[in-house]
């Protein structure tokens, strides 16, 4: 199947439609909440939580004995929340730093989850096969009810974000001020963290434990480069993320042996790379262009100032000088001289140059703004 076939099939084929819708919705919710995670400097929280969800899945299976994805998700949610609050506990109550706390919870919960999974595999329960799809995710296992669940959660999340927009925004940028205004920062904090955990848990089935964190933060990091406004960033991130979901699904469906999760992550990474380089205000390319332009401007100013100091020593401004005397001066190139001529600061006559009235005036005002009249 090639890409064209995919797009022609996407509306008619049940599986493709479900997967595409699922990844798009998942992307949207991850992008929205990811923006908050990135701005709160909790980028790696997603990584820790997604790993911490594993024992919850295993325990939910051990208790219910069924592979119903909703009960497993509730298990994952509970253990993800426990992980999150334990991370908070470690950083606030002990002197261990947040990176250590994240690494601890991530690896310890995941290891415990692996223990439980291998334990389950030894159990005489034919139902257990396929629990390990949560490790890497299998978008192909999505069914319509999963997509409905995602849609409901996304809707809920959207409502909450719109309702508490002001509070979230304020907590994000100035927690102390929020507190002094009388908001209960703890509850707002718990609310937003819980929704981040919820989004991560939702994505486990599709992209898996290991790659979920990228799904959360890559679109947000990309969106951050294009705007300084939180609202725009959230919308952009949701859009980028949904697009990487759809596009990743399309690529992986059109090739053999490509799992969806890694492809989605790579598409999102391409977005990030593109944004890092080509974003007009923060991007590396335009930053470098601005840098070069500024340097050229400075050199031009240097040449002009040098000419000004020569012209000052003569009676008339338009006294011609040879170009040669500029040669041992660093700011001078043929190009800068041409530019100065174009700006009507300098007149050229064969091998001789002279400052114009306008050039003289500009040059005298270059470093001090005294002769404005």
């Amino acid at each position, binding site marked *: 199947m090639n890409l064209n076939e995919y797009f022609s099939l996407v509306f008619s084929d049940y599986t493709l439609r479900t997967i595409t819708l699922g990844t798009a919705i998942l992307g949207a919710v991850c992008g929205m909440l990811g923006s908050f995670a*990135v701005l709160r*400097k*909790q*980028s*790696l929280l*997603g*990584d820790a939580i997604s*790993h911490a969800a594993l024992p919850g899945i295993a325990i939910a299976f051990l208790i219910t004995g069924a592979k119903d994805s909703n009960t497993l998700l509730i298990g994952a949610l509970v253990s993800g929340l426990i992980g999150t609050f334990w991370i908070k*506990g*470690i950083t606030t*109550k*002990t*002197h*261990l*730093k947040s*990176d*250590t706390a*994240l*690494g*601890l919870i*991530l*690896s*310890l*919960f*995941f*290891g*415990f*989850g*692996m*223990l*439980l*999974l*291998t*334990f389950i595999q*030894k159990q005489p329960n034919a139902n257990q096969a396929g629990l*390990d799809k949560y*490790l*890497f995710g299998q978008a192909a296992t999505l069914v319509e009810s999963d997509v409905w669940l995602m849609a409901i959660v996304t809707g809920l999340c959207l409502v909450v974000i719109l309702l508490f927009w002001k509070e979230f925004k304020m907590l994000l940028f100035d927690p102390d001020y929020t507190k002094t205004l009388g908001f209960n920062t703890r509850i707002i904090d718990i609310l937003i963290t819980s929704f981040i955990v919820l989004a991560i848990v939702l994505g486990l089935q599709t992209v898996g434990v*290991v*790659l979920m*964190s*990228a799904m959360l*933060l*890559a679109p947000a*990091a990309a969106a*951050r*480069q294009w705007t300084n406004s939180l609202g725009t960033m959230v919308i952009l991130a949701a859009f980028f993320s949904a697009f990487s979901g759809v596009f990743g699904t399309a690529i992986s469906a059109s090739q053999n*042996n*490509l*799992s969806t*999760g*890694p*492809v989605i*992550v*790579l598409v999102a*990474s391409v977005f*990030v790379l593109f944004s*890092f380089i080509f974003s007009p205000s*923060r991007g*590396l390319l335009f930053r470098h262009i601005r840098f070069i332009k500024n340097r050229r401007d400075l050199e031009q100013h240097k040449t002009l100032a040098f000419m000004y100091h020569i012209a000052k020593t003569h009676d008339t401004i338009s006294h011609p000088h040879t170009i040669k005397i500029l040669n041992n001066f660093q700011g001078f190139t043929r190009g800068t001289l041409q530019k100065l001529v174009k700006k009507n600061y300098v007149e050229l006559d064969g091998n001789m140059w002279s400052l114009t009235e306008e050039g003289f005036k500009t040059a005298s005002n270059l470093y001090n703004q005294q002769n404005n009249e």
Partner: protein
Amino acid sequence: MNSAQIEIQLIASLVAIACAIPGTFLVLRKMAMISDAISHAILPGLVIGFFITQDLNSPLLILLAALSGLITVVLVEQIQQTGLVKEDTAIGLVFPALFSIGVILIAKNANDVHLDVDAVLLGELAFAPFDRLIISGTDVGPKSLWVIGSILTVTLGLLFAFFKELKVSTFDAGLSASLGFSPVIIHYGLMSVASITTVGAFDAVGAILVVALMIAPAATAYLLTTDLKKMLLLAVFFGVLSAISGYWMAHILDASIAGSITTMLGFIFLMAYLFAPSKGVIAVIYREKQQRTEVSLITFLLHLKNHSEKSERHVNHLCEHINWQKVRAKTVLDLAQQNNMIIIDNNIVSLTDKGDAFTTQAIDYIITNEDAQIEDMKDDFFLFRG
């Protein structure tokens, strides 16, 4: 115990020691999450190495994989230097991308490669004794034992040779630079050791669980001591302890060895987290409660000193005046009485000479905030200790 079991425990213990040493420095340098990034990002290096050598224990593969770990570190630093995103975001961007490339490389070549992502992430220690190293016909032991043994030897050699440099640059990078030990070289040296250890350990315990073996023993040790040498020794001890106890737990439950080693690590950490003498949660909560009482006590004594009239010093009045609940008021009164700071006569509270002197000192302390003034009070009170 048969020889395979002994060999498994030996390998697990060596991995634990080899991980605990760089892990301690990573935790102290607040770079614990880098180990997570490295452990994921070695995947593409591993896969490419495996295409070339077809042997998970070949030195070339280990070098290639460690190189891809180092590339991760460099990439993270480069992205961070652009100032476009924070460090943690940079880590979170780089390693999933590299890991995805690895997964896709495996998936696209599934027919030629006997390499399973599960195996890379989770490892299988139980099979380690079956892959023997045979030198000129004689069996000298499992390959992974030799791999991790040589990595450990190098790590230990580097640790002893550069202990001073590592210590200085970990705690004071500026001082280290001014003394002429380049923090950059030490940083990359540490990162190389961490990468190589991760690669060497992954096929025993799996890439993700290497992270547990690096961070958890070090974090546990950090809760118990503030001495670097003691911390290293404790971390090694906890690592080995959980490696061996984890093996036996897996034996009993018939489950993944790596998983149960991590579970043991988690258990040990939980114990230290709750019960560590001065930094454990219970100790911290107890200390915070003590400090709260002591602040109340000082408030109370100051109140007494400021009011000479009897009505202000009546027991019943105090509750409403300072706005304390009964229980707390009673705790504070009892504490003050035990320390001979006050006498209660006819329900009228008054300061004793000792209480008066103490209150004066306390005021001095609050005003001047100089440590020397309160040296002698430190024995009685938590509050003024460090």
